[in-house]
């Protein structure tokens, strides 16, 4: 991970994403411009349907904007080929989801190793990197367990380890505490904070929990109806 706090990790320029639903055109993200600096912990806040997850998916390269541009590492995601977008997802960003999205038939170790396989990392290097990621989320004792044998908090930590294993520069978390109780959710957010501070990783977290956003994020960006409604850095 490189960059200083002043460098831009990811930037959207007048980005829009609309869907055709029957006769209606739904603008999920509407002309959003935002620059997220390196090592920043940004909370994207908004109610359900506000467009925050869509914006996160656009930043992740999982979706393409209808118009506008998204820049990461100096390249416009909107103009990338699907192969390049896959490379972006593999090397630049790591993703954490509300529903953990671990593969149920794989052990924790295999789940964490999966991005390394996709990135064609040499086999000899994999075990060390898996262990490093798992130790960072304090799950080293559960390596051989399958997701069904882990608690919700452990599953989210496992998902976090999987997101970290390829050493991305940006961590994108979509409602990471949405399926967790309050204490476990706080523990996950503490972990994110720790990762942000110790690794200097840029974090963009989608949430609808204003209090938590205020407690953990450096900056809170709120959205409503696909547009940015506020953007404030904590003092």
């Amino acid at each position, binding site marked *: 991970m490189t960059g200083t706090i002043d460098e831009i990790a990811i930037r959207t320029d007048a980005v829009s994403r609309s869907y055709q639903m029957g006769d209606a055109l739904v603008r999920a993200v509407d002309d959003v411009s935002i620059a997220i600096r390196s090592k920043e912990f940004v909370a994207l806040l908004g109610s359900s349907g506000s467009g925050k997850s869509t914006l996160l*998916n656009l930043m*992740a390269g*999982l*979706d393409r904007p209808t118009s506008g541009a998204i820049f990461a590492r100096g390249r416009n995601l909107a103009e990338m080929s*699907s*192969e390049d977008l*896959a*490379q972006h*997802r*593999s*090397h630049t960003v790591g*993703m954490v*989801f509300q529903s953990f*999205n671990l*593969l149920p*038939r*794989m052990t924790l170790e295999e789940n964490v190793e*999966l*991005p390394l*396989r*996709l*990135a*064609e990392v040499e086999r000899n290097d994999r075990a060390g990197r898996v262990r490093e990621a798992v130790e960072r989320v304090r799950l080293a004792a559960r390596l051989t367990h399958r997701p069904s044998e882990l608690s919700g908090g452990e599953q989210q930590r496992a998902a976090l380890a*999987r997101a970290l294993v*390829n050493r991305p520069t940006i961590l994108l978390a979509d409602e990471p505490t949405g399926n967790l109780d309050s204490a476990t959710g706080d523990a996950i957010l503490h972990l994110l904070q720790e990762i942000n501070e110790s690794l200097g990783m840029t974090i963009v977290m989608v949430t609808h929990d204003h209090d938590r956003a205020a407690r953990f994020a450096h900056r809170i960006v709120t959205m409503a109806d696909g547009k940015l409604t506020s953007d404030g850095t904590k003092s």
Partner: protein
Amino acid sequence: MKARDLTELAGRNLREALLRNSLTTLGIAVGVASLVAMLSLGVGLQELASKRLSRSGLFDAVFVSSRMNQRGFGRPTRPDPANASPAKPLDEQARQKIAGLANVVEVYPEIRFPTEIQFEGKPFSTTVAGIPASAKSDGAFDGMKGAFFSGPNVDEAILQIEFAKDLSTQPDSLIGKNLTLRYAERQPLPPEPSAGKSKTGANGKTPPLQETDLSPGFSIVPREKIFRIVGVVETEPATGFGGFGRGRLLIPLQVAETLRIAQANDLREILRGTSSKGNYDSLTVRVKGPSQVKSVEDAIQSQGFTTFSLLDATKSLRQVFAVFDLLLGIFGSLALAVASLGIINTLVMAILERRREIGILKALGAADRDIRRLFFAEAGVMGLLGGILGVALGWLIGSALTFGTNVYLRRQELPPIDLSSIPWWMVAGAIGFSVLVSLAAGIYPASRAAKLNPVEALRYE
């Protein structure tokens, strides 16, 4: 994703839905098995027919006669520009020259003569034929009672069953007994001063005879030779050109040659003044295989001899079997085509079930190409396993058919046969074809999986 990781993931995915994937693989295996069983029957029957025919000596043989004789074998000879070459006598020198040609295995004369034998004090008329040592592998001697000649120069005889029945009501009991062959030996007369020069013209015609041109001729001397009966054969082995005039009493060809039997062409040779040279009436040239018959035939014709072979007959035979194999292959492939629908169904179902997984893989950095290759690998692994299992099943079916057929043949007191044959190329071809068909069946599911929108896939519950 690297190939090893891809294979591991594919294997893991296949193990997850073990029952469904096993049934799909079994479907492929049944398809491959039907294809292999059909083709193995076709190839087996072809090999059986080819073996029998090649053993008969008719299809890998060229029959040679001198153009000095009338129209060779009584058949129109093939047009040949080399016909312009002068006619030559079919003598020992010509025999050696033909034997030296490429792809020629052996050259031997046709020796067959009617004569009389003495057995247990009684005379019996029969036809004696000289049999080359190579005839041992002749299918006609399969299942014979007793044994083939112990060597090329032994005074041993094999009886044809019908003749053996003339000698005894219990033909098997004849083995080990002796018989006396009575024959007419040709003894050349001493050369006269003016005789011994060939007067044959370049055009093969003999000039009008004059008193001084007559060859010394030969005398016929009755001889006897004792032969030990070593075997009784039920079939009628071909003993020369086309198998005409079957031999009832078979003796080693080399022994027959030493007998200097007076043959039908001897009278003609006297008139030509070549009787002392020991010309052959005809020679049989055995070549390495039917495919070499044409080249050998051409080479012999260019030496000035008339030839005949059953080459055209083998061509049509191979054509018939090629069509037969094709039809069997098509019927066999139908089952594999049905099995490929099973693969498509299984993989399409897998896409629906693993929609979310595909979304996760894409979110973690999998490219469309990785997803496509993953589904291809799964189809390929099913094809490979199905192919291997199918070949084994096909072999079992073929073996069962052979077993059943041989049980029936044994009841009919007939020798057993190898009804099915699975050569290595069929094993490799069937497995390769199975993988190919499976991959083709995987094209649609794989591209559909690769095109899945990851955002929608991740939303899928």
